[in-house]
């Protein structure tokens, strides 16, 4: 048996390296898939929450939309307001005892993370949609687009861009928060490391390894998302097809480029 801290770290890595790695894969899978589906849920909820009601809409449509919006409000509040561990237990064990639905732990995990992320993202998406210049919507309507087209072609692509940083945050949070899913027998990274700790009674050594793995995951995720963001912004330059005849006659007037932030 090893004697030193790092001796133990190396030893545990040999013994449990592959198990921890597998746990990390499960964690990553849950976080990525959950965040992805959660975003889609958030997107849909966000879009429904921002359906405009016109004065001349029929009463039926108004009540229907209002009801749906209140319902979704409740969904957002309840799922943001209660701990995910409880949600997991209710979904997994509750479905079994009440409706005899025997879902697999991983499926339940995806479900819970998605629903939970969806509730958080719904608010974010709504903010993102509202932060898009209203002029964009007006212009879309003015060329004859309907609500769905406006959202799909004009508003959402821009809202999504605004929402990206928050999405990254959510992914990072999910990577860490999936750890509660071990109560529904999902063996993700945290649980894997806990069982390793429970076998060797070495807490700090194992968690040192775990922290490094978590850190690698979250760091990679956040860098990847930043890269994605800059990718979404597209190229900074564009190609003139030919010379522009309407450009200034006195010659060299540079195109207004976005000024770099000034220094003073």
């Amino acid at each position, binding site marked *: 048996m090893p004697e030193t801290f790092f001796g133990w770290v190396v030893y545990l890595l040999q013994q449990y390296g592959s198990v921890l790695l597998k746990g990390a894969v499960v964690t990553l899978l849950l976080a990525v898939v959950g965040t992805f589906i959660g975003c889609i849920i958030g997107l849909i909820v966000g879009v429904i929450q921002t359906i405009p009601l*016109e*004065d*001349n809409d029929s009463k039926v449509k108004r009540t229907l939309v209002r009801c749906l919006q209140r319902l979704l409000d409740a969904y957002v509040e309840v799922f943001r307001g209660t701990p995910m561990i409880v949600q997991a237990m209710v979904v997994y064990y509750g479905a079994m005892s009440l409706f005899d639905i025997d879902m697999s732990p991983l499926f339940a995990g995806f479900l819970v993370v998605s629903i939970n992320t969806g509730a958080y993202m719904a608010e974010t998406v709504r903010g993102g949609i509202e932060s898009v*210049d209203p*002029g*964009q919507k*007006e*212009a*879309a*309507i*003015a*060329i*004859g*687009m*309907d609500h769905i*087209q406006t959202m799909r*072609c*004009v508003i959402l*692509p*821009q809202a999504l*861009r605004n929402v990206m940083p928050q999405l990254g945050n959510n992914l990072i949070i999910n990577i860490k928060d999936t750890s509660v899913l071990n109560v529904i027998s999902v063996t993700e990274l945290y649980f894997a490391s806990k069982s390793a700790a429970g076998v060797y009674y070495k807490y700090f050594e194992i968690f040192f390894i775990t922290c490094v793995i978590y850190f690698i995951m979250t760091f990679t995720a956040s860098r990847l998302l930043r890269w994605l963001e800059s990718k979404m912004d*597209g190229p900074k330059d*564009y*190609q*003139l*097809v*030919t*010379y*522009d*005849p*309407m450009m200034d006659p006195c010659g060299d007037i540079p*195109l*207004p*480029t*976005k000024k770099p932030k000034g220094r003073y």
Partner: protein
Amino acid sequence: MEKELLLSVHDLKKSFGEREILKGISFDVRRGDVVCIIGPSGSGKSTLIRCVNYLEHPTAGTIDYRGTDVNEAFKKLTMYRTKVGMVFQSFNLFNNMTVLENCMVGQVKVLGKSKEEARTTALKYLKHVGMDTYVNAKPHQLSGGQKQRVAIARALALEPEVLLMDEPTSALDPEMVGEVLRVIRDLAKEGLTMVIVTHEMAFARDVSNRVIFIDQGVIAEEGEPQELFTHPKNKRTQDFLSRFANA
């Protein structure tokens, strides 16, 4: 011979909450007309032109398109809007699309044209406004004047019968006003029907064949540009015009 009647606005009223902004406005637009709407800030010019395009729903009154109420003539308002184009003060180009895509998206999504066809039409009108070399640029890479020219091309690409413009040059640096006015002037010469809200008095006088002066939600004065600018009858018109002598 009278020119064909395209739009006629009957006793249009619009309230926001308690406040009545438009208090009964009527006017006609015939094919080839260039109508300029002038008036002080807050008088309701933007509200009026937005009502004409049904961006705001009028509280009362009707708008007829070729003699039929718009709500009857068109099953969907979206189709009406392709007939009556709109150009905004703040351009409102779609930020997530290139210049070319801005001019194509309406044709493809609303008129259901093929991409090829849409591309050809878009390029035609971009050339018209002198922006065909910028097809790959994103809106944020353009100057204000260039943006507005693209916005005009986007509206024209749907080949509307009437083009509405709400202060098309107000958001521009003075230097760039010229290029946009030049484009509008060309369109007027080619016989495009337009309704233009503007603060450029010299331009309004030049380009329009009718000027409407709106104040406090009603048409205070209306007439031939020469007449209205040189001999305004209404006291308010006189006051208003005097403020454009640049201090």
